[in-house]
């Protein structure tokens, strides 16, 4: 009985195993599905009658906008907000759709986009070997309605394509992008202290860093500085942000340039908010030092904007003393480096023996009151600084380490530069300035 069972089982197995036409993976073949996907993307790219607006956010930060038109013979033309040529002159190169792990869009000969990824720093700055950490080969993530989302194959930069309208296409061709970029660059250069007021009386400092393409909001509440930042790219109307910047739950995603009023505005919750310009800095310096600025560099000079007579005299005394001292040192610039986390200040003094530069570090621990009065307590210096303690005393031991100080901005009318100023509370005649870095 058992035997029959086995024999019949084998027979059935033999027949069954020879049956043709069983599909191991139901549905379309992988290459067919890939081909379909590529065709969908291809049709979308080449099918947009007025081309695409593209926003590229490199993984190294910053943002850039492009206007691209794709044709059916692998050619793409583009404008970009990278430099004055790319905003005015259309440039053509090759592009390709290819399945590299996933369906991808490759910009495979040099065009404006490659400037950002160029590893040679002389092309567009950035890090040697990496440029701005940007991509030119992208994987399709999503195709929805009038937009396509992609991410970079190598560095995961973000690329967003949005269908352009006929009017936008005409505007790019009429070099409107260049006009707009220049307007905003000029505006931010002329108005360094921009702020927004979003529903309360707190002034939110609004900074557009044109070089790094980063917009940041800074504000003070209960003596703490808060920040919200995002990369931005230029559009035909203003700037668009990579992700919203948020103040108290209020989101900003875009700024618009008002050519008539010559200012920037945004729309928050359906309400138009104009960015205001202030002649003076928005936030007190003592809150920004160590956060936005790391140090104040007091230059090598005998006199300088914002230096009091007493400081000039004391610096000259110290300079003469180091020169006459056993090592014959020339006093050069002084860097005041703040570390907020450790509540410490390091005064790094450059001293030269002939052509050889040495650094002398004078460390201080500080205590700061809520309204920004500093008391710097000297920690005995060692090394090079230990050798010139007595020579530097007119500046260090007798003033910086002894008095209370307030930090403030000092506007140099001659150069138009805003400097950082130390003012002694006990000796109002002792004040000095340096560049904010």
């Amino acid at each position, binding site marked *: 009985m058992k035997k029959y069972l086995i024999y019949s089982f084998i027979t059935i197995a033999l027949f069954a*195993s020879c049956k043709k036409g069983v599909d191991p993976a139901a549905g379309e073949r992988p290459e067919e599905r890939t081909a379909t996907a590529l065709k969908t993307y291809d049709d979308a790219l080449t099918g947009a009658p007025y081309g695409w607006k593209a926003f590229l956010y490199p993984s190294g930060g910053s943002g850039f906008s492009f206007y691209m038109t794709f044709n059916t013979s692998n050619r793409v033309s583009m404008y970009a907000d990278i430099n004055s040529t790319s905003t005015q002159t259309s440039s053509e190169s090759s592009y390709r759709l290819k399945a590299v792990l996933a369906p991808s869009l490759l910009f495979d*000969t*040099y065009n404006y986009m490659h400037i950002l990824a160029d590893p040679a720093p002389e092309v567009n700055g950035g890090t*040697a070997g990496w440029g701005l950490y940007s991509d030119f080969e992208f994987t399709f993530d999503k195709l929805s309605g009038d937009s396509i989302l992609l991410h970079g*194959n*190598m560095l995961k930069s973000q690329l967003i394509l949005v269908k352009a309208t006929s009017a936008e296409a005409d505007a790019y061709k009429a070099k409107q992008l260049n006009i707009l970029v220049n307007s905003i660059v000029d505006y931010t250069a002329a108005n360094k202290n921009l702020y927004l007021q979003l529903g309360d009386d707190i002034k939110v400092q609004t900074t557009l860093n044109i070089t790094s393409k980063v917009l940041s909001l800074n504000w003070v509440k209960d003596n703490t500085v808060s920040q919200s930042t995002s990369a931005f790219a230029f559009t035909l109307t203003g700037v668009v942000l990579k992700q919203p910047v948020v103040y108290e739950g209020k989101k900003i995603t875009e700024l618009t340039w008002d050519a008539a009023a010559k200012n920037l505005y945004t729309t928050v919750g359906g309400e138009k908010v104009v960015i205001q310009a202030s002649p003076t800095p928005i936030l007190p310096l003592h809150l920004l030092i160590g956060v936005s600025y790391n140090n104040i560099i007091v230059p090598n000079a005998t006199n300088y904007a914002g230096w009091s007579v007493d400081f000039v005299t004391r610096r000259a005394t110290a300079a003469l003393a180091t020169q006459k001292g056993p090592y014959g040192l020339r006093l050069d610039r002084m860097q005041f480096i703040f570390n907020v986390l450790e509540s410490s200040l390091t005064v790094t003094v450059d001293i030269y023996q002939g052509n050889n530069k040495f650094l002398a570090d004078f460390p201080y621990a500080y205590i700061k009151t809520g309204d920004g009065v500093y008391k710097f307590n000297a920690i005995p210096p060692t090394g090079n600084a230990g050798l010139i303690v007595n020579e530097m005393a007119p500046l260090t031991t007798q003033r910086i380490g002894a008095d209370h100080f307030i930090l403030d901005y000092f506007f140099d009318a001659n150069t138009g530069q805003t400097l950082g100023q130390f003012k002694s509370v006990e000796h109002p005649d002792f004040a000095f300035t340096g560049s904010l870095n």
Partner: protein
Amino acid sequence: MKKIFYRSILMLAIVAMASCKKEGTLNANLDAIDRNNPANIAVDTWLNDNYVVPYNIEVKYRWDAFELDLSKDMTPPKEEMVIPAMETVRDIWIKPYEKVGGANFMKVNSPKQFVLVGSPQFNGDGTITLGTADGGRKIVLYVINNFSKTNRSGIKGMANLMYHEFTHILNQKLAFQTQFALITKADYTANWNIPSLEEARSLGFITQYSRSNPIEDFAEMVCNMIVMGRPLFDATVDALPDDPRTKLRKKEQLVVEYFKTAWNIDFYELQSTVQDAIDQLAPVILKNSIGPNNLYSTFTAKPSEEPQSADFLAKWNTAKASMDAVGFKLKEYSFTYLANNIVTLRYTFTNSAGTTTYYGDADYKYTIDNAGVTKFTLVNPQTSGTTYGNMGVIKPFMTAVDSYIQGNDFKIDWAPGIDNSTKGLPGARGAFYKVTDPSSYLTGALN
């Protein structure tokens, strides 16, 4: 026994199932995935006509990350740079090898693929890569976006690269002599880029990179000998102390021997062919290279000892005879270019015994126009001084030469029949050709 029987049945069944082969074509259409055939543009047609058809070499300029180091950021080349770069590669590398190695040499030995990269490849140690070769099959050329066809040093850089990489390929096909590695075996180092070129030369290496290992050393010898040209290479080597000079000469000898025995190529002929090709593409233009603080500021000639144009030699000999008659031996003349478009013409002569040397100087104002035509006008009054005074003495006897120099327009160019590889080097021979009759000219050494 029964168990064995059932087991054999089971085995049979498995074999039967496995052997039930389906006949069907493998019809996955991979073109759909890899759309590797984009529409051709003019660049593709040119590459097809100049590389694919004659040499079966593929030039890949469209970006393909998988041809390169995937961990590094690089960019594709600009389309407009592809043809100029590949024309140069053809002229300075393929054509010379064809000439000295035979028409089929490159068809057989050339690598079958070029990959072009627009940017350099940055390495972790602060160096950049300009070219790589692997497996005798592929050469990658970087920094194509900075290429300029008229930039002589750029072209030399590319030639350097091509000959370097191709030497690796030749070496992979036929290895070089083992004794090459023994000449400077103690001084190879992984940190080749830190010690100076002077140090490398003083140890018997032609470049710093030579020090990395014998394989690179051999390739560096080949490409530097070719790109420097024989005169510069000789001058460089001869300026070294005995020990490194002997080592470099030994290496040179092995390189020449390798090309002869392994490939039946006369290395020195290859060297001069490449020099000619470089000069053809990006010549050193003499009219732009002469003047104060320029490549050349003096021109010196000894017409009695050096080949001359017959016309000028006759005038020189007339002057010489007149000088002889008053007891002076005329030796040489020279031009020294000074500031403010002044050039000093100096005749060097001795007393009849040859024991005292005298100089006779005269200042001329000179002009050089865009076509390289120059004109000398005597400055009046002349500077005072002994040598200028001497000129006053010999002037009546030098009339034949003086009037030739003053009375003609000359075109500045290289001397006839000059070796291309000496152009731009100290001591190269230049000439002033009479505009109305180019068969008559002044010629001398430039320094």
